[in-house]
């Protein structure tokens, strides 16, 4: 040990001493803090045989498509107080997994069309295997809601009438109209 290294060794010993004291203080502080709080001690987990849940679906088609154009509506010209009907019923199908209550939405016609404002449309269910016929009075009955179970089908007739008091300006005209079938889920 020479004169130049002795003070350095002494200072390094002192540093070690202080570090030891500091660490002790930290350990005491940590222990005291932990004891004062809330913490988990024991913990155990059990697993049980669960499963995967899937959600169902809702779906409604007309003749198996989302939008269907009813044929034969222009075969017979409309007259005031008379109606026309497509002979072959259309088929509404519930393609989802929930029971539906099907309502017939409002008639849609081009805005301002004079013929469109003077027609009446009725959608009704008929028994399977039957053909659609015009209503004797010439005024189709108002559309009624019907139920459709999952996978079930309903035969529908679409009947269009020209109001008896239609003005002469509707003569010789054509109009595209639309009717929406709205299916709402119902609880069994």
């Amino acid at each position: 040990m020479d004169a130049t290294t002795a003070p350095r060794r002494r200072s390094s010993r002192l540093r070690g001493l202080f570090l030891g004291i500091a660490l002790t203080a930290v350990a005491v502080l940590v222990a005291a803090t932990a004891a004062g709080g809330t913490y988990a001690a024991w913990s155990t987990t059990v697993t049980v045989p669960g499963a995967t849940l899937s959600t169902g679906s809702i779906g409604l088609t007309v003749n198996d498509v989302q939008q269907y154009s009813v044929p034969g509506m222009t075969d017979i010209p409309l007259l005031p107080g008379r109606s026309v009907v497509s002979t072959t019923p259309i088929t509404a199908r519930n393609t989802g997994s929930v029971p539906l209550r099907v309502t017939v939405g409002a008639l849609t016609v081009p805005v301002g069309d004079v013929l469109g404002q003077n027609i009446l449309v009725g959608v009704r269910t008929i028994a399977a295997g039957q053909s659609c016929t015009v209503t004797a009075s010439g005024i189709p009955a108002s559309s009624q809601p019907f139920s459709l179970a999952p996978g079930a089908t309903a035969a529908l007739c679409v009947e269009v009438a020209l109001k008896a008091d239609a003005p002469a300006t509707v003569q010789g005209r054509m109009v595209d109209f639309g009717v929406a079938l709205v299916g709402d889920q119902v609880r069994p």
Partner: protein
Amino acid sequence: MNKLVKGSIATAAGVALLLGGAGTFALWSDTAGVQGGTVQTGVLDIAPVADTAKWADVSVNGRTGATFNPATDKIVPGDTVTFTQDVTLTAEGKNLKAELALATDAAKIATAFAAQGVGSVTLGTTVKSGSATVVAKEAGKVFTVTPGAAGATGASTSTLQVVVTVAFNAGVTEQTAQSLAAAVDLTKLGFTLTQVRGANAS
């Protein structure tokens, strides 16, 4: 590191010297033995009761009480189904209290199903037998379980019925969350019992 050890030793030596300097040295010495006894640790365990897992359809206006087969049945708006499982709780120890909750990753919920107001997965539990008490700490999520008096074996054993409820809100519109193959995945379903101290222990 060496310095650290030396420093610690020096501190200890210093403390010992300080303590020693304050008293007097006795020449006579005597020792008396005290029978301290043996200290034992307790037990905290949760285990499933075999053949008690079952699914049920508990929809308010539907097939109430009917069985539900998750492999084939699909849930639709308005449905509420439950998974029920009995578990045995074994606890032994003074001041032992625990919280029961769904294990981490117990339920994977599809984003569309988890969306606000669409569907929910909640936990419930009731004491089926035994003297344990259950108090909801966080409704539908966490329950504080206090084991009852110890039985003949020294441990407190109770049977809890744990119910996981999956509900599909009837108020959703249009085609919200339809055709989800994995709306709620409970294949890793588990329950965790975690001992609690401090504010929760009395």
